[in-house]
């Protein structure tokens, strides 16, 4: 664990904090007129927002929002993307061609714009954000899985399995997917970071969680109006967002370095 350092600890704190926060008695919608825009105090560590609600409680609740959205979207994207990509490469032919075209079209279109359009059509709400980001998110995994599958499907053990008469499903799930899982895992880690940013972006635009629920994006949006007088409203969620995304990206880099066999051999030689 120590070789991953701080970044993994931050991720663990983020995920644990998110789920534990659901068990805590948080005051995310407790309007307190006397405490409007109050700075940090001993009782309220990160101060109070424009309605006197404690920023710390809202930060934790926003953390849950971003965490649950990131994990759900990445799970859906990884599973659908990998299955579609692997199948496409393995089966080849017309199916492959159609899938490649679809992937190209999705990639040609800016992902976040598509998500905004979808969230706009389906109406604001956190479940629609999950759907919109998943619709955009599976493409990267499908492309990666397809490329990886193409490079391993001619290997000897796959040919051997074919000759031995293994069923296709067994070949895909036992002989192909485990081999391509390392790069997908790395991609998924980076995916978490981009989904966290995308969710914050959509909530910033008002397409994500609806008041009085909290999200880091909506907290930043609400805070910008008081940036001159109460910068803590923007700083708290902004720093939280940056720290989590940075930690996830760093952890992804470490993970890739570790899973990269060639690099490890080189390191061993020098």
């Amino acid at each position, binding site marked *: 664990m120590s070789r991953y350092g701080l970044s993994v600890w931050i991720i663990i704190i983020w995920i644990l904090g998110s789920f534990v926060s659901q068990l805590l008695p948080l005051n995310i*919608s*407790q*309007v307190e*007129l*006397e405490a*409007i*825009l109050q700075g940090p105090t001993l009782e309220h560590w990160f101060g109070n927002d*424009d*309605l*006197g609600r404690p920023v710390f409680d809202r930060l934790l609740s926003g953390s849950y929002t971003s965490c649950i959205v990131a994990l759900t979207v990445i799970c859906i994207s990884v599973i659908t993307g990998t299955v579609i990509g692997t199948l496409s490469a393995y089966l080849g032919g017309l199916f492959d061609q159609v899938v490649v075209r679809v992937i190209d079209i999705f990639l040609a279109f800016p992902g976040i714009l598509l998500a905004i359009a979808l969230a706009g059509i389906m109406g604001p709400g956190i479940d629609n954000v999950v759907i919109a980001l998943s619709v955009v998110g599976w493409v990267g995994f499908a492309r990666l899985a397809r490329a990886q599958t193409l490079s391993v499907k001619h290997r000897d053990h796959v040919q051997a399995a074919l000759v031995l008469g293994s069923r296709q499903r067994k070949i895909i799930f036992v002989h192909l997917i485990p081999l391509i899982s390392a790069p997908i895992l790395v991609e998924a880690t*980076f995916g978490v*970071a*981009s989904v966290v940013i995308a969710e914050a972006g959509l909530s910033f635009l008002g397409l994500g969680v609806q*008041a*009085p629920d909290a999200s880091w994006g909506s907290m930043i949006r*609400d805070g*910008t*109006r*008081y*940036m*001159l*007088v*109460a910068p803590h409203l923007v700083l708290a969620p902004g720093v939280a967002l940056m720290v989590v995304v940075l930690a996830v*990206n*760093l952890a*992804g*880099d470490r993970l890739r370095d570790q899973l990269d066999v060639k690099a490890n051999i080189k390191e061993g030689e020098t």
Partner: protein
Amino acid sequence: MHPHTECFRLLAANILILSIFVITACSSPQSSAVRFGLASAPISLDPRFATDATSSRINRLLYQRLVDFDEHFQPIPSLADWQLLSATVYRFQLRDHGRRFESGEQLTSVDVKATYEFILDPANASPHRGSLLNIARIDAIDDDNIDFHLHKADPLFPANLVIGIVPTNIVEQGEILTTRSMGSGPFRFVEWPSQDRLIIQRREDGQRVEFIHVQDATVRVLKLLRGEIDMLQNDLPRELVHYLEKKDAVSVEHLDGNNFSYLGFNQNDPALMDIRVRQAIAYAVDRKSIIRNLLGGRTVVANSILTPEHWAGLKSVPGYTYQPSRARELLLQAGFHHGHPLQLEYKTSSDPFRIRIATILQQQLARVGIKVKLRSFDWATFYGDIKSGRFQMYSLSWVGIKNPDIFRYVFHSQSIPPKGANRGRYSNPQVDRLIDAVEASVDIDHRTTLYRQIQQLLLQDLPYVPLWYEEHFIASNDNISGYQLVKDGNYDGLGSVVKAASTRLAEAQ
């Protein structure tokens, strides 16, 4: 490419773009024009069509009207004095002042007649027509005298003649002066180069005034501090006003206003039909605390549409105070309790400040057990829903109400939209009778008494829960002087504003 190197590149690109913005912003030219920051851009410069607050206020600078109001909102002569020839005939005599149009032509009674006849023609669909329907005929006697013949006697009739006078030739050509002006006011139109920038010029001394639309409140404050705008009026959260008050280079002045904020109810709703429910809401709202903590300044609790300073306003009434226990009691009597709570849908516009207030009201109503669902819409959808009665509860403001005939427009059972603004479908025969009686009466004292009775009755019956009159404030840089705030929040002070050549200006040149 590694995703995080991509991040850094993006960041670098952003910093580059930002610095370009900052550099261009720094080189913004100083000017001798008084630059006035606006939260919403004007829509129309034609007094026959302008209805939004910004347009109406700018219209006052460009055009002259027959009648104006004093501080008690009594009509006083502006372009013209008037006398009552008979119960239904008013004679207006044009004064010497303010009668030269921008073209140099003289404003005469013919122009007055043309302007009002244009508005009265239903084909022109002027939004001001409704307030002038009592006019039967307009006769221009000579250049300076004009008679208004009415269908029925109305001692308050002059208060309706507040529309800017447009030259006859413009009316005859059928031109709508949306993007230029041709008035006889203290200012003349210069240029409207973009939606966000309107330039006018004071006729007396050539002083230019630029109206600059900056939507975001924080940006408006920053522009004021940087000297990109010289002054701004209203439309800032109180916290930003405090922030400006602490700045040495900016002075802030406050004045109590007459913009009336209220909670409106749908009287066809089975729950809100019950007066006990409406009273419970009135007792559950802690207006004093909201004013103290959120609105501040000179905002005061309201009991009626008309302020106490208004000649027909309620002078001192107990009104409703914050009594949550009484609210719960009333709700219980109306049949609502823990097991069967009152549930309401509360519509508001998507303006962040309105949502902020709505959220606070939602929480205060929750304290007495009323479950409020907040729905916010863009202005057009919201206003459309309110006008067609698709709401349970909503909040809005009446801006700049001076004429007490507002009561017929808002509370008479015959004034349900599109005929009037009785959006809550309020119907109280007693109120109807009083409104009819007040219009039949010609004695001003008697009218005043009747108006006060109407307001007293409305306060008991609560078709609206009155909230507060929002204050006005002006924040200006030190080189600006001579601007006088007025209760109605108009921009007339620009007529006497002076901008001193700043030291920054000297340096820049």
